[in-house]
């Protein structure tokens, strides 16, 4: 039971906090300078390798990304499932802001910042939805696909005490 005190919310753990009923914030620390984290995020050849983890059970057909302020991106999974939007702000190596337009007017705006601290990089990603309803509805798609492979509530409860 003491395992939880070992620093569960430190190190490279992914933490998720719901800031408000329309904003979710994810944090994670990477053991590398910000320029490398930014590079892995902003070049399609690197991005495609981690954005669609195997456990998602999905295959990316194509990925176009023009990571510049005003640039566009489009991820295609086939069967007409596309994710696309525009980069509102790109400041290497510290900040990328983009829209998620596949959801129409319910689309979120994502802001990711890379803050270097002693050779490590704190990544903070915020997803801001236009309304509470839009955020609630965002559980469909990728999250549901992943959820299938992770099992149900009972398994989740099993992890609570670890």
């Amino acid at each position, binding site marked *: 039971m003491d395992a939880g005190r070992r620093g569960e919310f430190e190190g490279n753990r992914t933490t998720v906090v719901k800031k408000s*009923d329309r904003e*979710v914030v994810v944090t994670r620390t990477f053991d590398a300078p910000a320029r490398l984290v930014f590079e*892995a995020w902003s070049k399609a050849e690197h991005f495609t390798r981690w954005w669609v983890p195997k456990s998602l059970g999905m295959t990316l057909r194509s990925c176009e990304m023009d990571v510049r302020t005003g640039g566009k991106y489009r991820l295609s999974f086939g069967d007409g499932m596309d994710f696309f939007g525009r980069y509102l702000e790109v400041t290497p190596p510290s900040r990328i802001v983009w829209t998620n337009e596949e959801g129409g007017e319910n689309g979120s705006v994502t802001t990711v910042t890379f803050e270097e601290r002693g050779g490590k990089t704190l990544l903070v990603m915020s997803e801001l939805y236009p309304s509470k309803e839009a955020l609630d509805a965002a559980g469909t798609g*990728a999250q549901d696909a992943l959820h299938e492979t992770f099992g149900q509530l009972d398994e989740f409860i099993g992890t609570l005490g670890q």
Partner: protein
Amino acid sequence: MVQYTESHFNASFAALSDVTRRGVLEQLARADASITELADKFDMTLTGMKKHVGVLEQAGLVTTEKVGRVRTCRLGRCRLEEEAMWIERYRQLWHARFDELDKVIEELKLKEKSDGRRKKR
């Protein structure tokens, strides 16, 4: 999805931030238990356990019912499912992505090392 409020979320996550309370939830997932049983199990005073159960109850993660002198606790399954699951699914997605991102970054680091000091942009 079912309606919920920000304060519900905050209460839930404050409740889940404690290792004993997560242990209590895990225990109640297996079987209902009285406060006395939980206190024994976690080697705590009755008062201490009452406080933990109180926090879980406030967050809607646990419900209690007093029959005679015994207060029985059970999992507030619905609330957990609605609230914590949303975040947990979200976290799992990003956890999976970031683990892969770690590998990509590790390769970039090695490449940078072997390339020597690269020109800075």
